[in-house]
């Protein structure tokens, strides 16, 4: 599926107009939905800020594709490694963005991907360690043009 730039802008405008109508199906994530997503990812465990570095632009010109890197301080040995990394959004239609499952054979705890951001918001990265602890980092991102996904 290829959009011309003109079609994309027209489509986004149409959705922005649709957003003011009451019948829009997908609003942004509520704080409760975000909390639920965090609980799902952590199975209710306590999350401590630290050990995780979320690399994401402070200002994203295009919310359709924002290059995001998560690095976790870990020796990545059999005894002490990162099991999983979760990315959670605050103001996308759905709070879950991605989960990465790693292990000692990853060698280093660093992953990058391109994500969509519908609005300016905080992005949360949570790392699950092999000892069962959870660590996190959070960054605010200003999105100039939101991903055209919910009219937001």
């Amino acid at each position, binding site marked *: 599926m290829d959009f011309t730039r003109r079609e994309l802008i027209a489509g986004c405008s149409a959705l922005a107009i649709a957003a003011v109508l009451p019948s829009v199906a997908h609003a942004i994530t509520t704080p409760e939905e975000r909390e639920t997503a965090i609980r799902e990812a952590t199975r209710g465990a306590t999350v401590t800020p630290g050990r995780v570095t979320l690399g994401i632009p402070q200002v994203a010109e295009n919310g359709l594709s924002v290059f995001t890197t998560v690095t976790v301080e870990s020796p990545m040995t059999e005894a002490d490694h990162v099991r999983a990394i979760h990315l959670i*959004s605050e103001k996308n239609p759905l709070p879950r963005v991605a989960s990465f*499952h790693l292990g000692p054979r990853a060698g280093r705890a660093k*992953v*990058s*991907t391109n*994500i*969509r951001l519908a609005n300016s918001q905080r992005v949360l990265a949570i790392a699950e360690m092999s000892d069962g602890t959870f660590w996190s980092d959070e960054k605010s991102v200003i999105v100039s043009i939101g991903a055209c996904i919910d009219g937001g």
Partner: protein
Amino acid sequence: MALAVARVSMPATAKKGDIIEIKALMRHVMEPGYRSDNRGQIIPRDIVKSLSVMYAGAEVFRMEMHPAIAANPYVVFSTVAVDTGELVFTWTDEKGATTVEKKPLMVTA
């Protein structure tokens, strides 16, 4: 939409114990299911759900994706070169259709 082309970029050879960087790209629309077409009809959701990477007898990396992953899902990760062999990348969409890409890795002592 049938799953289409996947591309993987990684070294062809590595020393045993080296950490190699792998870049994997799958060509896919990642339609989130919120958008309307120009007749006002919702475009049905169509996303790749996961990427799994098998190497030397184990799954060394898995990524679960949601609609907030950008079109043409791209990921960079790493693995330790343990043995000469193939890395098998499997992308699976929501309907269970898979795309498989294989890359050989020659590991020297």
